[in-house]
C-alpha cells in the first residue's frame, strides 16, 4: 500500500534532481527548467499532504504555486532573451561582472 511517505520520498528525489540541474547545467534555459522541476516537486508534496489531511488547501496552494511559476518563468525567459542579446551566449559563466 502506498502511504504518504512514498509520495514525500518521491517528491524529495525530484527536488534533488531539480537542484542538481540548477548548478550542473551550463545553459540558462535548462537551469530554468530545473527550477520548474523543483516547483513541481513541491506541488506534489502539497497535494499529497492535502489529501492526507483531508482539506482542499493543498490544491489551492498548488494552484497559486503554478501561477507564480508561470509568472516567474515569463520574467526569467525575458531576462534570458535580454542577456542573449548582449553576449550571444546562454552560458551562465559568461556573466561574471559581479566578480571581485
Amino acid at each position, binding site marked *: 500500500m502506498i502511504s504518504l511517505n512514498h509520495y514525500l520520498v518521491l517528491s524529495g528525489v525530484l527536488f534533488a534532481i531539480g537542484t542538481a540541474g540548477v*548548478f550542473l547545467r551550463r545553459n540558462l534555459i535548462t537551469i530554468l527548467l530545473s527550477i520548474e522541476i523543483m516547483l513541481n516537486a513541491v506541488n506534489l508534496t502539497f497535494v499529497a499532504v492535502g489529501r492526507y489531511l483531508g482539506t482542499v488547501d493543498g490544491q489551492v496552494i498548488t494552484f497559486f504555486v503554478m501561477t507564480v511559476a508561470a509568472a516567474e518563468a515569463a520574467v526569467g525567459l525575458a531576462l534570458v532573451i535580454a542577456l542573449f542579446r548582449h553576449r550571444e551566449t546562454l552560458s551562465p*559563466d559568461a*556573466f561574471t561582472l559581479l*566578480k*571581485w
Partner: protein
Amino acid sequence: MLLLIPLLPLAGFLINTLLGRRLPKTVSGGVACLAMIGAFAVSVMASLGASASATHAIQQTVFRWIPSGDFQIPFALRVDPLSTLMILVVTGIGSLIHIYSTAYMHEETDSEYARYFSYLNLFAAFMLILVLGANFPVMFVGWEGVGLCSYLLIGFWFKKKSAGDAGKKAFIVNRVGDFGFILGMLLIFVTFGSLDFQEVASRVAGVAVEHSMGTITIATLLLFLGATGKSAQIPLYVWLPDAMEGPTPVSALIHAATMVTAGVYMIGRNAVLFQHAPMTLAVVAGIGTATALMAGTIGLVQNDIKRVLAYSTVSQLGYMFLAMGVGAYAAGIFHLYTHAFFKALLFLGSGAVIHALAGEQDMRNMGGLRQALPITFWTFLAGTVAIAGIPPLAGFFSKDEILFNAYSKGHELLWAIGVLTALLTATYMFRLLFLTFFGERRHEAPAAPAHPEEEEPAAQHGAHRAPSTAHDAPAHGALGTAHDALSTAHDALSTAHDALSTAHGAPSTAHGSHLHDAPPAMAFALVVLAIGSVFAGFVGIPAAMGGSNRIEHFLEPSFEAHATAVGEFGPAVETQAAAPNEGAPGAHGEGSEDHDTEWMLMGVSVGAAAAGIVIAFYFWYRNRGAADRMARTLSPIYTLLLNKYYVDELYDATIVHPIENGSTVALWRGVDVGLIDGAVNGVGALVRGTSSGLRRLQTGSIRTYAASLFAGAVLILGWYLLR
C-alpha cells in the same frame, strides 16, 4: 608668616619666569636678590619668635593638603632650632650668592640672566620648603624640587652637551636615592601610622631600640639611601663632580652650602628615629668615613679647580655623616653650618679666579695671581685655613667636635681615618692655593672669546679630557718652563690687546686680557663669607676650651621626642629616647681627664692639619718638580686617583650598559617592535589575508553561488536531522 619664607623666592621665580625676558638685568637681578633678602629678614623674625616661645618652635599649617579618611597630611611648616639654623643659612648665604651672581652672570643675555635668577629663586623656595616641612611629604616636595632645580641649573648652558649630560646624571642618580626615600617614608607610615615628624618621634620613643634588622632599621636605611643620593655619598656621589658643569655660583649654593646638606638635615630631623636603629647608624658612620677618605684621595690629584672643591665637598659631607652616625647630631649640624660658609667662600673665590682668567679652570695653567687679585686671594686664604681646621677659624671647632665625639664614643678606627682625612684635606686645599695663587704665572693671555658659556666649558673640556694619561705629570715641569717663555711674550701681546679691546667696546672688556680683581658685588659676598668663616665657629666653643658650646644647647630640643600629639607641644621631655648628644655640660666637662683627652685630640687634629700644610708647601711651593717625580714613580696609584677609582666606568659597565643593551635588544626590538608592533601589524595582516582569501568567493558565477547555497542547505538539513 612662616609661609612668607618660601613664598618670597617663589614670587621672585614667577616674576622672572613670566616677565624676565622683557626686564633689564638690573631689575631681574634686583628682584631675585630682594626676594632672598626679604626671606632672610622674615627668617630672622621667625627664629626670634620661635626661640621666644616655650616650646622653641612655631608651627603653621598652610592648608589641608591630603585629606583621605584617616590619612591626613596638612601642608605644615615648622620652625624649631634645627630649621632655624637651616633657614638662616639658606637665606643668608643664598642672598650673598644671589648678589655675587648679579656680577658673575653679567655677560649673559637678558633672558638668560632672568632664567638663571628664576631657577635660583625657585631652588631657594624649594629648599626652604624642605627644611621647614613639618612632615615627610612636605619635606619630600622640597626634596624633589631641589633635585629638579639642580638639574635645571647644572644644565643651565644646555646647548653644551656635557652640561646637559651632567644635569641628567644628577637627576637620575638622585632618583635612585629618592626611590629609597619614598620606600622608607611608606614603611614609616605603615609602622607608625603617621608622617608628621613630631608624631613619629614621639611614637618611636616608646619603642625599644632595635639591635637587629627590624622595620625601623630597614626604614632608616632606605631613608639613608635617599640621603646618599642627595648628599653625594657612596654609592650615589658620582653626580657631584660632573655637576661642576653648572655656573660657579650654582656650585656654591647648591652643591656646597645647601642642597647637598639636605641628607644630613633629614637625619638630624629624624634623630630619635635613627637613634633606635644602631645598625643604620653604624652604616651611616661607616659610609660617611669611607666617602670622606675616598674623596680626599681623589681630590689630591685633580687638576680642575672646581673638581677639587667638589671632591672636597663630598669629603666634608662624609664628616657630617660620620657625626650623625656616631650620634653627635649637633656636631654634624654645626659642621654643616661652618662648612656652608667656607665652602661657599671657596667656590665663589674660585669663580672670581675663573672670571678673571676668562674661563680658565685648569690649575696647571694658573699661578702667581696673588698680587693681581688681592681681595680674592685673602678671602680664599681665609676659607682654606678654615677648611683645613686651623684654630681659631670656624672649621677647626666643628671638625674637632666631630672627631672628639667619634673618639669618645669608642669609634677609634673612624676617628683615625677622620684624622687622616683631615691631613688630606689640608694637603689638597693648600695645594690648590699654592698652584693658583703662588709661583710663576702660567696662564696665557685669554683671547677675548664671545660668551662665558664657551669659555668655562672649553677649559672644562681641557681638564675633563686630560686625565687617564700619565704624561700629564711629567709635562708639568716642562710646560712650566715653556709657559714661562710664552708668558713674557704674551704679556707684551696682552697690553696690545688691552688697547684694542678698549677701543672695541663693551663685550670684550669684561673678560679681556687684563686681570682684574672681583667686581664690587662679588667682592662684597667674598668678604662677608670670609668674616663668617673666621668667626662663625665661636658659637660652638667646647667646654674644654672654656666655652659653653652654645650651638649644641641651642639645637638640643630638635633631637628629642616630645611626648604629645601633633599640633600641641608640651615641654621638651627628656625621655630615655632622647638623642644622646653630649650637650649636657656634664658629659662634656666631667672631670679634667675628659678635658685632657679633648685637648690631646685637638692637638692631634691640628697637628695633622699642620702636617698637611707642610706637605703641600714642600711639594707645590718649594719644589714643584718633586710632585711630578713622585707622580711618575707612583704612576699606577696616580692614574687610579686621577680617574676617580674608575667608579664611573664601573657603574657604566655594570649598570648603565646592561640596562641600555637590555632595553634596546629585549625591550625595544623584542617587545615593542616584535610583540606590540607585530600584534598590531599582525591584526592588519590577518584581516588583509582573510579578506583576500574570502574575496575569491566572489566569482561572479551564479552557478557557484547557487552551489554554495545548496551546500549550505544540505548542511543545515543534515544538522537538523541529526539532532
